[in-house]
């Protein structure tokens, strides 16, 4: 059976049960249950699925996955996870931004791998809406989410308008 990854899942700032098991390159698709597969396998086997199965197969991207490497079919995927090799690897932030703003991906966008409680607000602003925090991370800090910083200068995925278009500056 595919294994549930270790850690604590936050959807938004709420702890949630993780129902997405990891399917590695060899394991066959189970008859039921949600699974995450590496993007290479998804492209080879599952990208053209349109039946009910397509709604229980999510895709794991590496931070250096090229956008050109997959196509608009990824729209239909219910969940994309980006796997961070280190919490300070900034590529995942750009990839998430592009998935949301360029590809128009509207499903669940999950950060996994080396996810750190102190960068949660950056992750959310780049369009992630769920986080799989590895064992040992401080969940209470992670749950503060966006509330850590109430003001931003730039636009972002969740609020495209920069401060100067959002509010009357100077007050």
């Amino acid at each position, binding site marked *: 059976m595919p294994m549930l990854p270790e850690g604590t899942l936050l959807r938004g700032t709420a702890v949630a049960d993780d129902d997405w098991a990891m399917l590695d390159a060899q394991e066959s698709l189970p008859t039921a249950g949600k699974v995450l597969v590496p993007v290479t396998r998804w492209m080879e086997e599952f990208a053209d699925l349109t039946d009910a199965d397509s709604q229980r197969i999510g895709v794991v991207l590496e931070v*250096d996955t090229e956008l050109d490497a997959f196509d608009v079919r990824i729209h239909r995927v219910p969940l994309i996870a980006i796997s961070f090799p280190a*919490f*300070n*690897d*900034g*590529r995942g*932030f*750009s*990839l998430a*931004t592009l998935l949301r703003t*360029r590809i128009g991906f509207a499903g669940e966008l999950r950060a996994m791998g080396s996810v*750190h409680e*102190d*960068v949660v*607000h*950056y992750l959310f*602003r*780049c369009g992630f809406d769920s986080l799989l925090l590895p064992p040992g991370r*401080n969940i209470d*800090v992670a749950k503060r989410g966006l509330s*850590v*910083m*109430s*003001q*931003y*200068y*730039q*636009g*972002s*995925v969740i609020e*495209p*308008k*920069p*401060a*100067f*278009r959002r*509010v009357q*500056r*100077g*007050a």
Partner: protein
Amino acid sequence: MYRYDTIDKTFVAERVAQYRDQTNRYLQGELSESEFLQLRLRNGLYVQRLAPMLRVAVPYGTLSAHQLRMLAHIARHYDRGYGHLSTRQNMQFNWPDLAEVPDILEDLASVEMHAIQTSGNCIRNVTTDHFAGVAADEQIDPRPFCEIIRQWSTSHPEFDWLPRKFKIAVNGAAADRAATDVHDIGIEIRMEAGDPVFDFKVGGGLGRTPVVGSLIRSGLPAVHLLTYLEAILRVYNRYGRRDNKYKARIKILVRALSAEVFADKVDAEWAHIKDGPSTLTEQEIQRVAAWFAPPEYESLVDQDLGSLRLAHPEFAHWLRMNVTPHQRPGYACVTLSTKVTGIAPGDVSDRQMDAVADWAERYGHGDIRISHEQNFVLPDVRQRHLFDLWSAARNERLAIANIGTLNDIICCPGGDYCSLANAKSIPIAEAIQRRFADVDELYDLGPIDLNISGCMNACGHHHVGHIGILGVDKKGEEWYQISLGGHAGRGASLGEIVGPSFSRAEVPDVIERILDVYLAHRRTGEAFLDCYRRIGIVPFKADVYADAA
């Protein structure tokens, strides 16, 4: 100068609270050393050889008297009574207690300052001309655009975790006092048909692999400033190398792709976001620019200081060396040199900071600058007060008339403080200043930029010194490699290494021999750099290594 509004204040206050919590969690063992490292760097705290160092951001080198007094207070209360002016126009404190840093940041926030992104692999303090807004050769004041870039780059959700540190410099004058050719992004603003337009140079930088930046975009209208920056940063963030920190700067990516291909990638990215919500509005540009409107200048005429010059030759030297023309008649820009023999270049005491703050208010409009050459600048001094200012500055050892001379040395903290350094740099600076103590000799040598770095990271900008000195480690001993012909201003060039390195004791002699070669070859009025560019390195090499042959 720019003043915080509710957004700035809230942002900085929340950031201090966040960092206080992070510090507490670290001190309680909840955050590991390596995790906390990433967080503290982005809040200005860097650990040196002996103690933490807090680098306070001085946005584009501009300070108010009120802010400088707070820095004096911090030096006095939390440190050992002094601070250090850095080559990024910031102020560093060498001895803060890690546990007290949140308190320091809170004090800074009370005067609309912070230490965010002064270290770490993120967009650093944007720098500019220390005479911005007052320089006689200025086309446009770059400060409003620096402030717009500061806000855009502060805690950017996508670009706070770059492959490597990222430095942006902006210039708006005929001379390039911001060294835009040797920055990750160098921006030159010029006026075209009455509107500011932007030229972008990328991939310049010093460090291990010094490179002069490549022009990738010319004449960009101001409204596109942020979207174009976003495109550059996104390409870099995605494709810059992360496997080797010495190959992670944008210059390596630009070189690997070629500037043309890099520019194409940026353009392709920019095409998606151009005219999007991050496009600047004329209203926003005007709003920020209003903060930098000229102060209430008095209607004055230029002063004839001839009799004071005659009566006080040292004042005359100071006027010639340290006073720069101002846009307005009757005003002057004054550089207060920190390059006093026996004091580390850039080090200033709390008392000096308080004094400079007082002078800024008494003789100008309360505005102070820090130059990347590690000096204080008072940009708005009434000429009729120059003598009073000089007299007061003499009492505080801030009136040395050596700006632009060999003794106005740019120098990193080196092996005395920095754990990266291969060699000490401050004692080298001092030995050179002692050797060239004779002011007549110093003035006769003319303008010479002498820059010293204690290691390849080049914080002392040795590659762009007319004379550059680099500390190297050879089998556990400190040696010094000397290069010639570097230049940071317009027409930037990288120095050429003379040859095998020298021991610390030899350095002053070698510098003297280099200067003797210059004196023997120079034409009337020919500056060191011009002479070097005419005759090349060969005569210098031949003389310096003559004994070894």
